[in-house]
């Protein structure tokens, strides 16, 4: 896609976001015989290895606000979050029929068991539960993780019927390094000038990256930044907030819009963490598997999906984000019934309280419809920051 204006780019991304048939990914697959698509659920999977196999990594982030879940509710009890039920809905209504394999990252018990449901329901598909180390020493967790990566590589080689060469891996690492650099540039740009890059646009831009090949997504981000810079948009008297807890089931688009309309510029968030999980470039010389392993162990974002080794380390990532992004406060936005986010929250809250950083907490589901209470809550929060902040 080549577009000049923000509107064109955002409309394009919105189209991808709303398209629950994943037409773009289908088109990519159909463009050449033998192409394969590997779906992955939120949080982290090493997309570099899928890419190096010549396959398309397809981020599947539930069904969103507009999907009517009919069958999925027969799979999950009322007290289980919504993302597995809408994902099952997508699958059993044929919307994922072109997907050749699914990866389920290690994040929580629901996601873990969803991998088993896939094994039971889709016996002819490649299914991999993707475990990651919670021990971050090279010789312990690193050895385990590198072996897991090798097993993944072997599995994809078998599925694709071709070897994944070191050269291909290095190239894919380069492609994703560049993609990540531009993701970070977009985030930096939004943080510096949030009125020029509204969060709903940034979000749609990143969502497009879940469906498009990384090379196309990178170009799209370049185009967006250039276009956004040309736009003349007024700066509002909003406060700056970091949003955390939304790393898995995604909030409805309206929620993101509502937060900004109520007076909160989102200057950092943890939506679609997979694009920002690795904090530094992965080296392109040496053994690419070892490099990916070390990048995960030593340079990855702190989230509720990871074990924090020390009491002192807990919350440091969030505090650093607040400092770096000059956030005035934090919105904890977690999906209902999300054990990792909700169990992490009291620990993070205590760190914020120690630093006298204002915060509010809210819960949502991907199909939450009532935005008025959220607008009131976040509007009051924004007002209180503006009225009482010492800054």
């Amino acid at each position, binding site marked *: 896609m080549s577009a000049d204006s923000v509107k064109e780019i955002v409309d394009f991304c919105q189209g991808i976001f709303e398209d629950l048939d994943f037409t773009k990914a289908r088109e990519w697959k159909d463009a050449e015989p033998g192409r394969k698509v590997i779906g992955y659920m939120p949080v982290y999977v090493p997309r570099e290895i899928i890419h190096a196999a010549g396959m398309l990594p397809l981020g599947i982030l539930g069904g969103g606000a507009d999907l009517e879940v009919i069958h999925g509710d027969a799979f999950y*009890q009322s007290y289980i979050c919504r993302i597995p039920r809408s994902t099952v809905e997508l699958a059993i209504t044929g919307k994922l029929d072109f997907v050749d394999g699914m990866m389920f990252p290690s994040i929580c*018990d629901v996601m873990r068991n969803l991998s088993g449901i896939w094994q*039971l329901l889709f016996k002819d598909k490649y299914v991999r539960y993707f*475990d990651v*180390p919670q021990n971050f020493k090279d010789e312990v*967790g690193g050895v385990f993780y590198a072996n897991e990566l090798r097993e993944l590589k072997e599995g994809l080689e078998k599925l694709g019927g071709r070897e994944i060469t070191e050269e291909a891996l290095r190239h894919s690492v380069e492609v994703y390094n560049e993609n990540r650099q531009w993701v970070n540039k977009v985030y930096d740009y939004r943080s510096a000038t949030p009125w020029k890059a509204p969060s709903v646009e940034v979000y749609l831009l990143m969502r497009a990256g879940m469906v498009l090949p990384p090379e196309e997504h990178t170009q799209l981000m370049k185009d967006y930044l250039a276009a956004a810079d040309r736009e003349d948009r007024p700066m509002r008297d909003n406060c700056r907030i970091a949003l955390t807890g939304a790393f898995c089931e995604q909030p409805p688009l309206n929620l993101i819009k509502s937060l900004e309309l109520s007076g909160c510029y989102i200057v950092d968030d943890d939506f679609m963490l997979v694009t920002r999980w690795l904090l530094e470039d992965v080296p392109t010389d040496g053994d690419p598997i070892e490099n990916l392993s070390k990048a995960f162990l030593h340079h990855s974002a702190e989230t509720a999906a990871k*074990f924090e080794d020390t009491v002192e380390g807990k919350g440091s990532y969030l505090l650093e984000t607040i400092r770096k992004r000059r956030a005035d406060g934090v919105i904890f936005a977690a999906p209902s019934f999300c054990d990792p986010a909700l169990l*992490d929250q*009291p620990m993070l*809250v205590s760190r914020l309280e120690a630093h006298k950083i204002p915060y509010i907490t809210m819960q949502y589901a991907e199909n939450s419809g009532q935005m008025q209470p959220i607008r009131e809550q976040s509007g009051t929060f924004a007002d209180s920051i503006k009225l009482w902040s010492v800054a």
Partner: protein
Amino acid sequence: MSQQDVIKSRSMLLQKEMIARNYDKITSGEVKVSSTFVPGNLNELLMCFDIANNLPEINAIQNAMRKKSGEMIMEAERSGHSEDVCTYVKADIGMMAKGNIAPNGKPFPDPDVLLLSYTGCFTFLKWFELLREQYKCPTVMLQVPYSADGQPTKNHRDYIVKQLKEEVIPTLEKISGIKFDIDRLREYLRKSAKAEDDLVWMLEQSKRKPSPIDCYFGGVYYMGPIFTAFRGTDEAITYYQMLREEIQERIDKGLGVQTPEGEMGEEKYRLVVEGPPNWTSFREFWKMFHEAGAVVVASSYTKVGGVYDYDNFRHDPDHPLESLADYCLGVYTNRNLPTRVDMLARNIKEYEADGLLINSIKSCNSFSAGQLVLMREVEKLTGKPGAFVETDLVDPRYFSAANVKNRLESYFQMIDQKRRAGGSATTLA
């Protein structure tokens, strides 16, 4: 019948005394204490360092059965914990806020170490991060990868052994001041295996008709010592020998299940149950079964601290660390759903059960996420009807007696109907 009139067997009395002794040990101030979890616990290893084993889940259960957990959970919610999360965690945190008193009336000491050895439950990881906030004590972790393909891999086993050698054992040596002696571990594992033989014998006796035992409500008691602080001890061997004798006695006399209120009477329904029991209304819940003549002949909950009957696992003194790794990997909830389906379907066939009842637990996604699919798969494989009730572990707000009873009655009627018709019944959900 009043609480005092509850009928207890000799083995139950012995177990009560064992648990009380363990709490006295924990609260004595004379030993080092580790908090750790039931599924994947390393009791034999802790004993090598003379460290007492304290299990937060068991404390939550004890408090639930004493009707104390509700207030503890609300205390945790008042301090910022969500209504949505695991109630074991909140009961534990609420217990701390209310003085951290052990069931023997004495205060729990702060643990010397949090041994984050866990399987099949991601929440455990967060739980110990939360406890570490409070206790500020060392935390050592044994990460057990999920057996997502049904079988442990060499990489999984090697990872666990390496963590034991390079993380867990050195930390426990440092905390206890005791050097690790692998022969001591071997001896404990030998004792574990002996008790495990009797445990499996016990589990398999419910293949008899009538079953001499209930493998869910009764099973909770039978599995107590082996899943907690006693695996690897002479006491556990004695306990399971005594239990075996008691069950043999019942078999010899042709007796069925003993309930807290006496002999059950005619065995009308044989069930396999998936999921943990409800602890806040445990006796009321059991009563709904035994009053209807329903006996649970096998349950997944009796595998939550280790699976010994499905693939004949025993702790192996000749391969001590590898054996601990295999034990951890094989715990019920650490196995993928297809394996859980296979286990339950086999149970239904081998124990000649009438069907599968699922007690779906609001605060335990490890068990609950996927249970509806699991039920349908088991139905397909066995042709036996499944049913679903919903309760919680230790939150009394989520036990609706009327609702559960209605569903159970409907289920028993469905089984009757199926027996009469000889056809397949539809699913209750």
